[in-house]
């Protein structure tokens, strides 16, 4: 299967300070900001009904809690492996949005990483980066 190309961001989950304190452990009940985990837009029918990546023309496979993905930051080639711990991002709200680093671009939000995972491949202060997501 070819890697899926799009945008990545980050989100907090689990025990947390500030506005993150109300987020909880995610749809899978296992999510923690300090773990290598991510949110995926198609973890269940209920999840898909919220995120609707199909609205943006994306066909994203159904994958459940604990499934492994490998995300590459297209700005620097850094890669991190994570497991599904939540439903998201809400892809349909940002249809067509494009983020680039020079000529390396990604369109549509396809994955949200925990702060630990995102910060392993990019600075948290950038918020959004083009990426590719693979299963190996």
């Amino acid at each position, binding site marked *: 299967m070819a890697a899926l190309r799009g945008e990545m*961001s*980050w*989100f*907090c989950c*689990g*025990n*947390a*300070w*500030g*506005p*993150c*304190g*109300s*987020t909880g452990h995610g749809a899978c009940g*296992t999510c*923690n*900001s*300090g*773990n*290598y*985990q991510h949110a995926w837009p198609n973890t269940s029918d209920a999840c898909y009904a919220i995120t609707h990546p199909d609205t943006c023309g994306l066909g994203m496979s159904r994958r459940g809690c*604990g499934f*492994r993905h490998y995300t590459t*930051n297209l*700005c*620097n*080639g*850094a*890669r*991190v*492996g*994570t*497991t599904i*711990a939540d439903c998201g*991002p*809400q892809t349909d*709200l*940002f*249809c*067509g*949005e*494009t*983020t680039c*680093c020079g000529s390396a671009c990604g*369109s549509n939000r396809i994955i949200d990483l925990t*702060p*630990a*995972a995102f*910060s*392993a*491949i*990019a*600075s*948290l*202060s*950038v*918020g*959004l980066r083009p990426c590719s997501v693979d299963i190996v």
Partner: protein
Amino acid sequence: MPHTLDRRRLLATAALGGVVGATGLGSLAPEAAFAAEAAAVEPGAPDPNFVEGRISKISGHLLLVTGSDTVLHSIRVTDGTSIWKLHPSTFDQVAVGDGLYARGVRLPDGTLAADSVWVNIVNLHAHIAAVGRNVLHLDHMGRRIVAHVVPGRSAAVYNGTPAVSDLSLLKVGRHVQVLGAWHPDTNEIDIATVYAAA
């Protein structure tokens, strides 16, 4: 990856009192620095080189941090540590009570020699409930967040277009992602960047 080893050795040396100035570690561009990090953590597992929590004490260049899971951490800030607090910032701007995420390398005594520290950083998905003068009122998971526009800093990205300082196109009801800095123990933040959907 020799480059990675060099960088990690520099961090550890700096934390242990070696003569390493900001220029010694600061020559890496941010993206290059993260590309150089080793990621040997099993997917799903906690990253031992990452810390989150709130600062309970500052002693010299050592931050004592209480994790949200109540685990205690020591974080050593060196001349080479990158600090973000709404802007790229300096150690003297860090305060007791601040929340943080930090990444670095563990020293033999368990202290984290910090490569990067993000202070009070939040990345919220929300709806705009109201717009005031230099302020957005956000609905975030059923709670109200007061997001302040900081002149000269706050920027908006409208559906992937380049960031601009004009936030006037943000309207009530729109979904936004807001990257900013929390005001500790309040429901207020300062806005760094607002990403707005079409």
